[in-house]
């Protein structure tokens, strides 16, 4: 469908149907190298090895077709060539390859695989009724005032596959309506079919062991941990998406306006968390006599009541500020555990499957400020309570597989500072950017320095690094979060 829409957009011409058409795009090369291997826990077992991590070429095409003042069609597509073959690479731990036959080597989908991303393919109808606009089709709806860490922004699932494109959402088919009277705006959206988040390539590394038994009840978790080995189990996770009926569609409403020069908004969302949560695990002895665990993961329902505000501190040299909070009402999730033969069912003290996500409401919040110093230096600082992947009240429980008796726990909603600065010079054609995230609870961090040059017309060249700091049992030190890498990118836009 996306290709058809793109083709229609490309062949549309004012000569045929009084359609005003404009288009643009870019080509983008992105090469990254993992500079330091990451091991599981404290062991010497390599989780992510050194080597090239990405070798992508991206071709993005956007087109807008207008028929008069009140109708607009928009398409935004990106072809991505991964730069790695699907056939397995010798001594590669990155997991690009899959078993291939000689015959596969005659197929471009094996030799030079690519995929297509559709960021948008929608139709805008303006002034359907006085003040009312509609947007129909595949789209991304962004709510909230915070930068990247918006707890009220839940209509689209996140694309977490690439840490450097952090905060990128996955477009979904939906109906959006916006009614405004001046700057008082009511927005509503309906998403018929749920779409899960796209996970980092390193996410399966989180299944390395059963060390992360997610039961919140200590006695039950300790019982399971004492009876089942936490390593040497082949764990597989199998997602099940919610039914595609009307009752499982998502929706939300946001009302925004301005009071005393402060932008204010209230929002409500009903839908699902986009990251999977374990709902059932079967532990068994596989044919090769190895202990195996098959875990079914699902996507819990949630309701989110949000509030956001933004303005300026006139008394603080016009510093910008914003606050975005959300109270999340999660669905209670329990994980049934079928033990291997010879064990009794693992149940909590109420005789039920143990809770992994309690239904206790919890708060997520982001508060931030930004400021420009001496014209060239821009500074942005945010305090974040609850990272974008964090869901549910209770605790994260980490258990090192090399010392399973040791538990490391932290609140599910961590506390972070996200801070960075841009310094521009040479007519803004050189940008030095340094951003970082620090986890107050486990002292892990991410550092993201880069230099971006736009000295050639329509061209952007960048060099930088994305560095994870922390032990394997911390938020950013976890191999499943990814490994430190250096990158070089080139982009030409038209």
């Amino acid at each position, binding site marked *: 469908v996306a290709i058809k829409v793109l083709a229609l957009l490309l062949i549309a011409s004012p000569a045929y149907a009084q359609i005003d058409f*404009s288009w*643009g795009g*870019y080509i983008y090369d992105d090469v990254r190298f993992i500079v330091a291997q990451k091991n599981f826990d404290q062991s010497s077992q390599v989780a992510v090895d050194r080597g090239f991590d990405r070798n992508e070429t991206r071709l993005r095409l956007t087109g*807008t077709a207008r028929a008069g003042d009140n109708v*607009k069609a928009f398409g935004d597509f990106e072809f991505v060539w991964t730069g790695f073959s699907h056939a397995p690479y010798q001594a590669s731990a990155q997991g690009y390859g899959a078993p291939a036959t000689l015959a596969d080597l005659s197929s471009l989908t094996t030799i030079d695989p690519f995929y297509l991303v559709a960021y*948008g393919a929608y139709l*805008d109808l*303006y002034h359907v009724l006085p003040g009312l*606009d509609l947007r129909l089709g595949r*789209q*991304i*709806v*962004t709510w909230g*005032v915070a930068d990247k860490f918006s707890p009220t922004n839940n209509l689209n699932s996140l694309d977490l596959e690439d840490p450097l494109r952090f905060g990128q959402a996955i477009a979904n088919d939906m109906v959006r309506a*916006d009614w*405004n009277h*001046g*700057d008082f*705006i009511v927005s509503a959206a309906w998403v018929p079919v749920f779409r899960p988040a796209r996970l980092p390539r390193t996410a399966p590394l989180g299944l390395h062991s059963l060390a992360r038994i997610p039961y919140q009840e200590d006695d039950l978790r300790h019982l399971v941990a004492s009876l089942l080995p936490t390593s040497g189990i082949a764990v597989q996770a199998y997602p099940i998406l919610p039914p595609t009926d009307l009752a499982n569609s998502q929706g939300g409403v946001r009302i925004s306006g301005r009071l005393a*020069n402060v*932008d204010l908004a209230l929002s409500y969302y009903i839908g699902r968390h986009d990251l999977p949560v374990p709902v059932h695990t079967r532990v068994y002895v596989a044919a090769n006599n190895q202990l195996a665990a098959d875990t079914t993961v699902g996507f819990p329902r949630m309701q989110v009541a949000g509030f956001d505000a*933004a*303005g*300026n501190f*006139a008394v603080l*040299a*016009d*510093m*910008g*500020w*914003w606050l975005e909070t959300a109270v999340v009402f999660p669905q209670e999730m329990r994980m049934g555990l079928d033990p291997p033969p010879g064990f009794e069912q693992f149940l909590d003290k109420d005789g039920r499957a143990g809770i992994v996500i309690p239904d206790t409401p919890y708060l997520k919040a982001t508060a931030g400020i*930004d*400021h*420009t110093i*001496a*014209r060239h230096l*821009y500074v942005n600082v945010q305090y974040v309570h609850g990272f974008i992947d964090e869901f549910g009240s209770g605790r994260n429980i980490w258990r090192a597989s090399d010392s399973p008796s040791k538990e490391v726990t932290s609140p599910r909603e961590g506390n972070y500072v996200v801070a960075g600065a841009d310094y*521009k010079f040479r*007519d*803004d*054609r050189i940008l030095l950017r340094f951003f970082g995230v620090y986890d107050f609870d486990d002292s892990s961090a991410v550092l993201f320095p880069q230099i971006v040059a736009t000295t050639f*017309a*329509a061209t*952007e060249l960048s060099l930088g690094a994305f560095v994870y700091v922390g032990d394997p049992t911390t938020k950013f030190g976890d191999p499943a979060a990814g490994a430190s890498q250096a990158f070089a990118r080139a*982009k030409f*836009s*038209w």
Partner: protein
Amino acid sequence: MFRALVLPLVALLFGDPPEIATLPPNPTGQQIVDAVDMDMFARDERYKVRLKIGDGTSVDPVLDVYQKTLGGIEKRLVRFASPPDLRGMGILVENRETMYVYLPGFDKVRRVGMHARTQNVMGSDFNYDDLGVLRYSHDYDATLMQTTPAEFIVEMTSKPGRDPIYVKLKAWVSRKCMQYTKIEYYDAHGMHVRTHLREYREGKGAGKRCLITKTSMIAHNRGNHLTVAEILEVKIGEKLPEDLFTVRSLARGN
């Protein structure tokens, strides 16, 4: 009667510029600045502007600028048609304290903190404050310094309680066009940091408003770095919809 009804209509259809602002005899500096300000937003205006920054590039920024007075409040909307990586971006200026930027990559409207007004617009010698200043008389008290046959020379100093970036301006106002032809900007240390030059094409017929054709900003604190804004298109008096100057409209994009 015929002339009264038909000629304005013909002028409107053929895009004749409207009449220039008038001044009382022996005007004060404040009256001159008020008249220029008043004239600036007396009618809906639309410009297409190409910015040549320094030596320029093959993809110089091109902006569409719309402005209108709504209920006595001036508003300005700027949309970026070029360069390609900024195409679709928009800025809505409600006043110097309230600006919004539309980021097409995120399909998001973000409020711009007032602190950002010192930042250059895309590396040019214009800054966001130049976009945000809709009337000089909001921020400055004006004194007439000199009158020549062609120009008024006015000095503007910042009003108490206001904090424009530049504490003093010296402005040359064309008596024929009642528009600024040159403005010198002075910082808090009294340093002459920028000079703004504006060129006009005279309107047809007596008393017709002059149309701006080119404007240049020279940043003396950047080694006399120059940005030339070439006015590619001007439409004055074409009625712009009120709805164009809302956050919702900004989010509709180009």
